[in-house]
């Protein structure tokens, strides 16, 4: 018997496979898989219905699954004895990075500033659009890695906020 934990959005599913028997969250299902090509296109036959899926590996154990009417990221973790942990949030809460390349239009805070939640910190221009980056919580600007007019690449650190200690 093999177990897989699948995480999609906020939900977690436990799939057990034992030979030709399959359970989802304890409920038995009858299903078969047919591979349609070697680039991740396959078909699941379940009850009287056939449904096509496409799967594409992303980072680690994350896969992008596409099917008629849905596209989601699924984290699939084979369970080896002990219970697997839900993937931890990789991003540090107070670290604000550039999501796409752009030019810094405005920096509205300076290091050491006390800032309230939702205060606009940085304005970035990208694809002729202005994007405002706001404080995720109340705190102190610990590090400011940019200045007005500077260009940033995707993933570059922009601002680091330290949460105010209560």
């Amino acid at each position, binding site marked *: 018997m093999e177990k897989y934990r*699948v995480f*999609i959005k906020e939900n977690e599913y436990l799939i057990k496979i034992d030979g030709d028997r399959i359970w989802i969250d304890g409920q038995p299902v009858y299903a078969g898989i047919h591979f349609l090509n*070697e680039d991740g296109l396959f078909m699941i036959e379940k009850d009287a219905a056939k449904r096509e*899926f496409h799967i*594409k590996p992303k980072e680690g154990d994350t896969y992008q699954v596409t099917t*008629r*009417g849905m596209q989601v990221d*699924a984290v699939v973790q084979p369970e080896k004895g002990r219970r697997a942990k839900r993937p931890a949030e990789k991003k540090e809460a107070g670290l604000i990075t550039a999501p796409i390349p752009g030019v810094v239009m405005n920096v509205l805070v300076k290091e050491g500033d006390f800032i309230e939640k939702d205060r606009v910190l940085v304005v970035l221009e990208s694809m*002729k659009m202005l994007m405002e980056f706001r404080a995720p919580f109340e705190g102190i600007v610990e590090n400011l890695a940019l200045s007005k007019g500077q260009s940033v690449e995707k993933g570059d650190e922009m601002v680091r906020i330290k949460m105010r200690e209560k």
Partner: protein
Amino acid sequence: MKILIANRGEIAVRIMQACRDLGFSSVAVYSDIDREALHTRYADEAVYIGPTPASQSYLSIDAILSAAHKSGVDAVHPGYGFLSENSVFAEKVEAEGFIFIGPTPQTITLTGDKLAARGIAAEAGVPILPGCDFAISNNQIPESIGAEIGYPVLIKAVSGGGGRGIRLARSKDELKNVVDSASQEAKLAFGDDHVFIEKFIRPARHIEVQILGDGKSNVLVIGERECSIQRRHQKLIEESPAPRLDALSRSRLYDAARKIGLALNYRSLGTVEFLMDSNSEFYFIEVNPRIQVEHPITEMVTGIDLVNTQLLLAASGCLTLKQDQIKLRGTAIEARIIAEDPNQSFMPTSGQISYLKIPGGAGVRVDSALYQGMWVTTDYDSLIAKLIVWGEDRSTAIRRMIGALDDFQIAGVTTDLCYLKDVVRSEAFLSAEVDTMYLESFQSPELEELEILEKETSLAAALFIHKKLKHKVHQTAKAVNHWRTVAWREQMVGYY
């Protein structure tokens, strides 16, 4: 005739299709990153025009003109976006002896100045929104302006358009800051920081009228389009004809559009945009002096190929189409598929398209420049495809749209496909009771069928991984000989 298409993506391909229809030759232009793009392969010839940033390629007047000379074309089609609304470009194209497939440079200058366009509409007797008739810059705002018009107000770029550089101010306290940021955005996007103020009406519908003129005082009206489904002033879903529009309002709209077309002695294709309030009173917003993204829905309901007509008009100077030949039949809807993530405040996305399934069938049309293996980048506009459907009536068109959205599958880059389906299926869209602010508060519903589908997806993912691990067949294994393919496939088929 030989035509250079000064654009990229789906619209470049669309114009090249029209060239093929008419037996004209087409010339594509491309930047570094577009070396392998579909539009470069679709054209009869392709000319390299410069580095990836648009400012050094698709926006470079010199680069495009030199490509036109090099390839010896007769005419230049600007498409939409890029240089399409640049009067200097149109002027130079004509000055260097080419046909510019679009309005005259004078028309582009007039329609590009949103205040001048307001003036033309007012003079033609077309209603305009209450607002100021002068430009504001350097933050000099007349004290009483907000009070005269009444809050909330919209701050718009004088040189703006296409929904860019528009900001909302709800009160006098907000006005100064909003004018500041609107003016900053205007400077950045259009190189002109002048803004003006117009009253913000709500609820309002966005309805636009397609016009076609010959530049010799003949202006045809080719139906209307409703584009109220917008996100931050960017259209997402368009429809023709506008639903729940009574015959009297429709003919008044057509008259207004024709008057503006005549006032401009309009040449080529254009669109006159209006806002309509809940009492069916409408107000002129702007003229778009070019082919529009949403032109296919007009083609679907009228049966007129707008691009073919536009090319023939440019080649001959004569309009053969007559107003009484133009009739609307059925309903057409367009959904814009964009490389943006609806779950992350529509942040642009990128990636390589590893799997692509384009819907088809009766009444379904897809305009795109997508292909499997293509890299979607954030260098240009995020529009990657347009899904257009036609139905004998509105409900058929909607069902067709839902089915086609389901069928449309793009793996490797996050798109708004699921979001579009949620919008099209929403109660307000079905009953055509939407206004331009609808998407601002729209939330995708939690549907039971989606929960079932998600569960099935989890099963599919687990089974796939299970089989892969068990048979140690890795995604990365590329070199597979035929024998192994067959053997592997047989192993995989069957129940367990």
